[in-house]
């Protein structure tokens, strides 16, 4: 990283100048290699903190029921080997039979400690064994590395609670509907407001801009109760998507600020020229500014999707019946059950995350740009 120490290393004064230069070159090479190795090592070490939990979510989603609680946990998912016996997929076990040899048998059922087995090589023969003989357990499942894709349909087809009458597919659909209208409302309502703050000169503009910025400091908790009572009791919108969607059609400080910052980078002379030509503000906004603003509108779209998809408090306040749950609510409900099916829970969590990951990889630049735009206000 530093060149100074490399050039000041002088253990080779007595050597030939040529040799000296070579060894100096060599020592710099070693130094660079060392620096790069340490850098890589540090980045990877810290990176594990970010990567391992993420991978663990996905790996758990692929585990079989037996493997989830295996102690100690194994990295890769394991599942019972299955064999086809008379058209049925049966789990294969290692069974120690009377003469002490171990035989691979398929299990038909295990009831009250007595296992009913069948020999896959000789399907007609049914064998029964008491599984616990003295201190010894005579049958052990044969496990192999196997990704259980079935967890995903299993998780999605179930509800968050037994007998709830709505599946995670419904929650997924609800989240999509809410996200779609939230994006629509945000795009329609914020752009004109931001344009007025960026490019129209009118009395009182700066005062209003200070007010809109000040609303960023207002915690949601202050307005939460009256808004809840307004939507729920006065308007009767409880348990519908309306309380989550309607407010997004009335602009918000964050997006107005983001859009305004961008609009201000568009040369004012262009607007002035259009004004001289007799264009109205609305024409300038729709025909000049908006077409130039696709990057920032994409940023707003991506971030609004992220926000709406992730939102928990809003749906928690307004949605009561499971058929209206969003993914966030459904997942929380699923986790709150007495017996937690971790592999299916992680499968549902993975499905919940996938749309965002897809959005990220399609719009990586947009993501990063947006974060920088919101972060660099000073």
């Amino acid at each position, binding site marked *: 990283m530093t060149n100074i120490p490399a050039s000041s290393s002088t253990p080779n004064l007595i050597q030939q100048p040529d040799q000296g230069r070579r060894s100096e070159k060599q020592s710099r090479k070693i130094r660079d290699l060392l620096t790069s190795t340490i*850098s890589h090592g540090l980045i990877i070490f810290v990176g594990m903190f970010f990567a391992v939990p993420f991978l663990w*979510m996905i790996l758990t989603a692929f585990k079989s029921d037996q493997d989830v609680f295996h*102690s100690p946990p194994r990295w890769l998912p394991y599942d019972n080997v299955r064999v086809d016996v008379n058209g049925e997929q049966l789990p294969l076990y290692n069974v120690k039979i009377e003469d002490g040899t171990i035989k691979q048998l398929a299990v038909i059922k295990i009831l009250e400690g007595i296992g009913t087995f069948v020999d896959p090589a000789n399907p007609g023969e049914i064998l029964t064994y008491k599984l616990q003989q003295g201190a010894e357990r005579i049958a052990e499942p044969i496990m192999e590395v196997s990704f259980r894709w079935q967890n995903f349909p299993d998780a999605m087809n179930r509800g968050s609670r037994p007998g709830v009458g709505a599946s995670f597919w419904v929650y997924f659909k609800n989240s999509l509907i809410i996200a779609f209208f939230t994006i629509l409302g945000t795009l329609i309502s914020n752009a004109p*407001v931001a344009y007025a703050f960026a490019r129209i000169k009118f009395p009182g503009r700066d005062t209003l801009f200070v007010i809109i910025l000040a609303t960023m400091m207002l915690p949601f*908790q202050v*307005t939460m109760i009256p808004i809840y009572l307004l939507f729920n009791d006065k308007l009767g919108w409880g348990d519908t998507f309306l309380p989550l969607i309607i407010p997004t059609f009335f602009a918000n400080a964050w997006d107005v600020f983001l859009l305004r910052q961008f609009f201000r980078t568009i040369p004012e002379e262009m607007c002035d020229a259009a004004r001289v030509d007799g264009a109205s503000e609305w024409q300038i906004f729709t025909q000049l500014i908006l077409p130039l603003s696709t990057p920032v509108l994409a940023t707003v779209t991506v971030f609004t999707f992220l926000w709406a998809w992730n939102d928990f408090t809003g749906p928690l*306040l307004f949605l009561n019946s499971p058929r209206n749950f969003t993914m966030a609510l459904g997942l*929380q409900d699923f986790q709150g059950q007495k017996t937690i099916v971790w592999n299916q829970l992680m499968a549902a969590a993975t499905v919940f995350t996938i749309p965002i990951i897809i959005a990220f990889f399609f719009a*990586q630049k947009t993501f990063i740009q947006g974060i920088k735009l919101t972060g660099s206000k000073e």
Partner: protein
Amino acid sequence: MDKLQPPERKLFSFKLPLKVVWTKRTKADFRTGMLFLSPWLIGFLAFTLYPMVVSFYYSFTIYHSRRAPDWVGLQNYKVLFTDDKFWIALSNTMYMVAIAVPLGLFASFLCAVLLNLKVRGQAFYRVVYFLPSIVPTVAGTILFLWLLNPQVGLVNTLLAQIGIDGPNWMADPQWSKPALILLGMWGMGGTIIIYLSGLQDVPQSLIEAAELDGANWLQRLWHITIPMVSPITLFNLITGMIGMFQYFAQAYVVGGGDKLGRPLNSTLFYSVYLYQNAFLFLKMGYASAMAWILFIIILIFTLLLLKVSDRFTYYAG
């Protein structure tokens, strides 16, 4: 310290629209402006100003949802100060603000410095550090409940392999908040990116000049990089703090919905207790008083930070 802060200066120097000379022209401009602003104006009146006024009024009443609010003056505020759970919730929240926010900023900065090193695969590493931050909050929280499961969780298993007896994490009042801090740090990718863009804006000429003067890597970091990114630190500190005062979803998920604050009220954060009062105990007036106290705390902290930061923040140009 008698120098006015930029936001304050803005607040006190605006011209009231009344002083404007109303000509045909300014009237027309005003009308156009208001037309463009109308979505926000309506939204502001309906979803910000009206609720603020009403909530302020509720805070002086006893209001049990369906029954009409009953004026009681300052009673809610007085009761709050003697409410043990209020103080528990406030101190839990202050713990997070005082520890999780600075720790997160410090760690984000270090991660950004790492990701700014010129190494092969830099772009890939950046994605790895960033990805967890876009995992939905509820999914991330549930994932950490699973990772930090005392018996079969991955973390305690790995700790056991190196001879450490892992704590009970979310089941132990001593460890539940550190567990939540870990969860928060896992998702700090956004802050890392902001710092990273700040690091890239540090003028190369400054660093080279310091290098020529014989400053080592650490000295350059301390005397150039950290002062140069101080406005970003201030911004992240303020937004992080405001967000942390409203910490809710993660704690709600950890509480499993019906056991909010568990274990032993150690995750009973301010917003959680406020939610409980408003929607589970249906004490809407009491909860409104809590909300206003929260607002005032946030205001005081923000202004304080802006004032103190004047000494420590360096604005280039």
